[in-house]
């Protein structure tokens, strides 16, 4: 048994047109764990998964999956992995059962053994009653379950889940989370999942890596990452006419690491609840008013903000998968020490405008 189910070092990938998707990504996934690759859209998560699943090759760097080199032994890697990509990759013109049987055939399963495995998976994912209906008639949640079942048909050692719950309603998402947790717990499967839902990584992953603009900016357990942030997060929503910059200036003494996004100010303080009165007083003294003030324990969103100088939602909305990606000079972690401004939400400003 190998200790690491996935080991990648210094993966670099530039797409035609100069889009630098990966600028040296290294990850190590211990066997039998759930590993979360977290980052906004366009951060390089999917490209990493494509390299690890032999779909594409890196320009440089090396990766081993289930003990096999992805470049030199792609066929061995392919037999050891199960993949569930972003799209619900099921054949709509075939039934659920036919989809699973073809998938089993591709991995060399035959006859009674295959039929038994298919029945088992249909049962496990609650698809037995619809097994003989065309996948076209399935709901999005059912197609996703079939999709995951197809990835498991050949009992892989490592399962890749690329954005497994994107586009699912909350109920289907909760079901999928329960399923993913039990896969690792009950079957000793190694699961590498990518997500841009912080909550998902927080709930499912034993280890989290945060990627941003093609680089790893943080790695550890979710708790480790959060504990590096001391104190609580405090979010101030400004009332209609208050100027965000004036508000930031007024709060400089009360909060640390203040970041502005639109009409929202986020900052840190050692004891959130006790800081609220002084925050309100400081705003009041500056002639400004708040629509709301929220105190929260540190979340992965705060970790991300601290590391990249952008809130997760802002980075996600930017969708930096175009030509702008990657030319932002210094590694994103340089935004970490100070507080940052993301007032206009455009990408260059997001990485550049670190407050004095």
């Amino acid at each position, binding site marked *: 048994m190998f200790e690491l189910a996935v080991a990648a070092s210094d993966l670099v990938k530039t797409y*035609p047109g100069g889009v630098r998707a990966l600028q040296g990504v290294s990850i190590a996934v211990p066997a039998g764990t759930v590993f979360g690759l977290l980052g906004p859209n366009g951060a390089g998560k999917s490209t990493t998964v*494509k390299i690890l*699943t*032999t*779909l*594409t*090759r890196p320009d440089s760097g090396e990766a081993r999956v289930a003990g096999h080199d992805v470049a030199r032994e792609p*066929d061995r890697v*392919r*037999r050891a*992995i199960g*993949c569930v*990509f*972003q*799209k*619900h*990759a*099921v*054949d*709509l*013109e*075939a039934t659920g059962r*036919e989809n699973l049987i*073809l*998938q089993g*055939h*591709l*991995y*060399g399963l035959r006859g009674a053994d295959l039929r038994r495995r298919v029945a088992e998976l249909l049962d496990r994912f609650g698809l037995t009653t619809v097994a003989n209906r*065309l996948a076209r008639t399935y709901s999005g949640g059912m197609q996703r379950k079939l999709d995951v079942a*197809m990835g498991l048909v050949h009992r892989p050692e490592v399962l890749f889940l690329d954005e497994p719950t994107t586009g699912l309603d909350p109920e289907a998402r909760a079901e999928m989370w329960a399923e993913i947790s039990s896969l690792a717990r009950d079957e000793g499967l190694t699961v590498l999942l990518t997500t841009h839902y912080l909550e998902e990584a927080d709930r499912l992953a034993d280890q989290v890596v945060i990627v941003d603009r093609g680089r790893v900016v943080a790695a550890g357990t979710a708790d480790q990452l959060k504990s590096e942030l001391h104190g609580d997060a405090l979010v101030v929503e400004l009332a209609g006419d208050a100027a965000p910059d004036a508000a930031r200036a007024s709060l400089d003494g009360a909060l640390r690491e203040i970041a502005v996004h639109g009409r929202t100010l986020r900052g840190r303080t050692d004891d959130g609840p006790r800081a609220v009165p002084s925050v309100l007083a400081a705003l009041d003294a500056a002639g400004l008013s708040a629509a709301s003030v929220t105190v929260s324990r540190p979340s992965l969103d705060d970790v991300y903000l601290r590391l990249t100088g952008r809130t997760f939602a802002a980075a996600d909305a930017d969708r930096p998968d175009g030509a702008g990606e990657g030319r932002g000079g210094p590694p994103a972690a340089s935004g970490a020490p100070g507080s940052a401004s993301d007032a206009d939400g455009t990408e260059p400003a997001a990485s550049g405008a670190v407050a004095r």
Partner: protein
Amino acid sequence: MSTLVAEPLWFTARGVRALLRQPWYVAFTLLQPAVWLLLFGALFEHVVPSPTGDYLAYLTPGIVVMTALFSNGWAGMGFITDAERGVMDRLLVSPVRRGSLIAGSLAHQQVTTLVQTAVILGLGLATGARFPGGLAVTLAFVGCTVLLGAAFASYSNALALLLRTQESLIGAVNLVVLPLSFLSAMLVPTEFLPGWIEAVAGWNPVNWAVEVGRQMLATDVDWGIVGSRAAALAALALAAAWLSSRAFRSYQRSV
């Protein structure tokens, strides 16, 4: 069964099964050549002096070739749908051979070609066409039609993998299929063609298949023509299959 044979067959079965689940589509793919045969037959019967005086018999092999050309031109649609749905990525991360995907698509298309060919020949016979050349040359013609169909299916698959969108595939296929049809003796005797078209037709694979088909009308079959055209079509089909496997690599590089 060895996986070398089994793998393509799974994809063939998948394609045929999907086709049979659309009975209206099947009906139209069979109805269309029937309409062409009867329509062109009625239209040109008194215009085109066919060498044998039996224009329907003369036209039948032409319609067989035309139908094979058109239906195989759309082969690449399957790859485009699979790529859009994410099914292609799923297949590419499995241990399945890339060649099996191509072979499976070709075999599925040629099942369609065989059924269409049988229906058109049957319809021709039913409406009075006679083929004195005999069964052997008829089978040779069916074989040549399948080879031409396979060549065009590969061409369509290659374009699909390079162009990636249905719209551009439709454009690229039409650009080739219609001119190749009319630069041949598909509908009219070679003697009827302008000199330059006749010269071009000699290099046109569509015309090679038509020439073999016309031997069905001869009482004394020229097996030299049948053999040379069949060999040329086989070479073309192989070259096109190789080309589409190259296109697969280019597709995968850009994923």
